[in-house]
């Protein structure tokens, strides 16, 4: 057996699943978004669904909200994760426990975090009660609206909560692989601690930071349950709108749902392309 054939056989099942399920699902979704549903007896291609969503105010505000939530969550989570990784890479007593707590957080499902955030930050949540106990607020309505709020703060808090450990652990592993010698060299060459971070460590961890952030951005852009639980009814981010349209009792709205799903997928593909450009220049994912 040739090596080529061997490799192909090893890859075949994965190729089948990813290509068939994932690729096939996207392709079917794309076709369906053009109104083509042979199983439903519709075989004409049209752009009705796209026309309809582009004309709808709720789509644009949903798209804007989605982009806003993903951007803000990713930036805050990335920033905090850098800070956390910088502290955690130092050797200090109790580091093992703290790293373990970080990993524990990775295993906690998003929805649990969302429920927790809800009970912490709602206007009658734990923080509001603490504020009341401290005499800062007179009643629930004095507490700032942090969930079901127009700025989607609750949603962002949940994503930040969940993703800081994720990015921080990626960065930590990356920093360990890089070691401290580059920084030592820079220090000797006259760079102060801030300059070392700015000119040496940050550029070195940037690919890992970027990779982690892209995953977070794409995830938050496509997530349904968190905004469904913590968000306002209107405006709702794209995945919520897509799900609503998909489960609408009016089947004619299904192509609209698919069209929105395709827009989500399209944006994610752009991110993926950026990822590919970044990494294949450097010679492979494991590089």
């Amino acid at each position: 057996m040739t090596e080529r054939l061997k490799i192909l056989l090893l890859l075949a099942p994965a190729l089948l699943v990813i290509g068939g399920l994932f690729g096939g699902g996207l392709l079917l979704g794309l076709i369906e978004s053009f109104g083509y549903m042979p199983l439903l007896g519709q075989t004409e291609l049209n752009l009705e669904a796209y026309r309809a969503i582009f004309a709808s105010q709720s789509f644009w505000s949903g798209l804007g909200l989605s982009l806003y939530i993903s951007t803000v969550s990713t930036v805050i989570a990335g920033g905090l994760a850098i800070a956390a990784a910088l502290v955690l890479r130092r050797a200090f007593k109790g580091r093992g426990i703290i790293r373990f707590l970080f990993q524990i957080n990775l295993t906690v499902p998003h929805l649990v975090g969302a429920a927790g955030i809800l009970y912490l930050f709602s206007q009658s949540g734990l923080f509001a009660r603490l504020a009341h106990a401290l005499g800062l607020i007179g009643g629930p309505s004095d507490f700032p609206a942090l969930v079901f709020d127009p700025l989607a703060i609750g949603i962002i808090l949940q994503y930040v909560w969940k993703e800081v450990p994720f990015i921080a652990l990626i960065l930590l592993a990356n920093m360990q692989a890089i070691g401290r010698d580059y920084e030592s060299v820079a220090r000797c060459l006259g760079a102060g601690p801030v300059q070392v971070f700015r000119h040496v460590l940050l550029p070195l961890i940037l690919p890992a930071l970027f990779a982690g952030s892209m995953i977070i951005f794409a995830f938050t852009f496509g997530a349904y349950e968190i905004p469904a639980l913590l968000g306002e009814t209107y405006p709702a981010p794209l995945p919520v709108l897509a799900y609503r349209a998909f489960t609408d009792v009016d089947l004619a709205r299904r192509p609209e749902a698919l069209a929105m799903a395709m827009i989500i997928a399209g944006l994610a593909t752009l991110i993926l392309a950026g990822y590919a450009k970044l990494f294949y220049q450097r010679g492979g994912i494991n590089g």
Partner: protein
Amino acid sequence: MTARLPIPLRLFLALLICWLMAPLIPLAVWSGSRSWYFPDILPSAYSGRAWSYVFSSVSGVPEGLWQSAFIALSATLLSLLIGLPAGRALGLYKFKGKALFELLILAPLIVPGIAAALGLHMVFLKLGLTGTMAGVVIVHLIPALPYMTLVMASVFAGYNPAAEQQARSLGAGSFQVFRYVTLPAILPGLLTGALFTFLVSWSQYILTLLIGGGRIVTLPLLLFNFASAGRNDITGAISMIYILPGAVLLLIAGRYLTGRNSAADSLRQI
């Protein structure tokens, strides 16, 4: 030098850890509370009602727990069977189109599953896969398989297949080679991959909802229902149950995950 951190850094870490643990606190308290009105910092009455409800069969939680576990274990097992060979190919060989294949494996991690699942829905419906465990397991493979494959690829990238040839030359059959040479070498990575794959499936909400059509009820679906219905006590109790397997698995797997094979290390591959 193992030393104490400067005070501002200690403060930062303390705040960070509090923040990471904070959401779990009201959930735990709610699960045992009976009435907990604003502005009480602690409940005015406690009760085990939520817990006894959650453990009763009418709540659907025991069934949801079992279904969640079955689905996540099946998805992990299937991912392992499919992802192990693929990871081996990616980790050990250079071949034409490898970059493209890597990108394909990576795609489901970036492109949200909801997009593919909406497209698959009609076909699954036609095949009778909606509302079945099989359908949900299959759709969970979309996010689960890439994790497993990438972790296995990184495991095999650091693996020397010459040991297998050595074992062969010493008279080991192909099963023995796998059992005594390959498996021990890849086991820590394999466990890491399995843990993360399990958790990916365990946390799925929207794919289960779409393909399960309401008939496959996993813990996240129950959690969502009770959380949006405002049953904080039951939500708290389900949350506690829901986070348990992940924490336990991490503790058990922890000894395999230490050092270079830490969870973070495999995440770095993603």
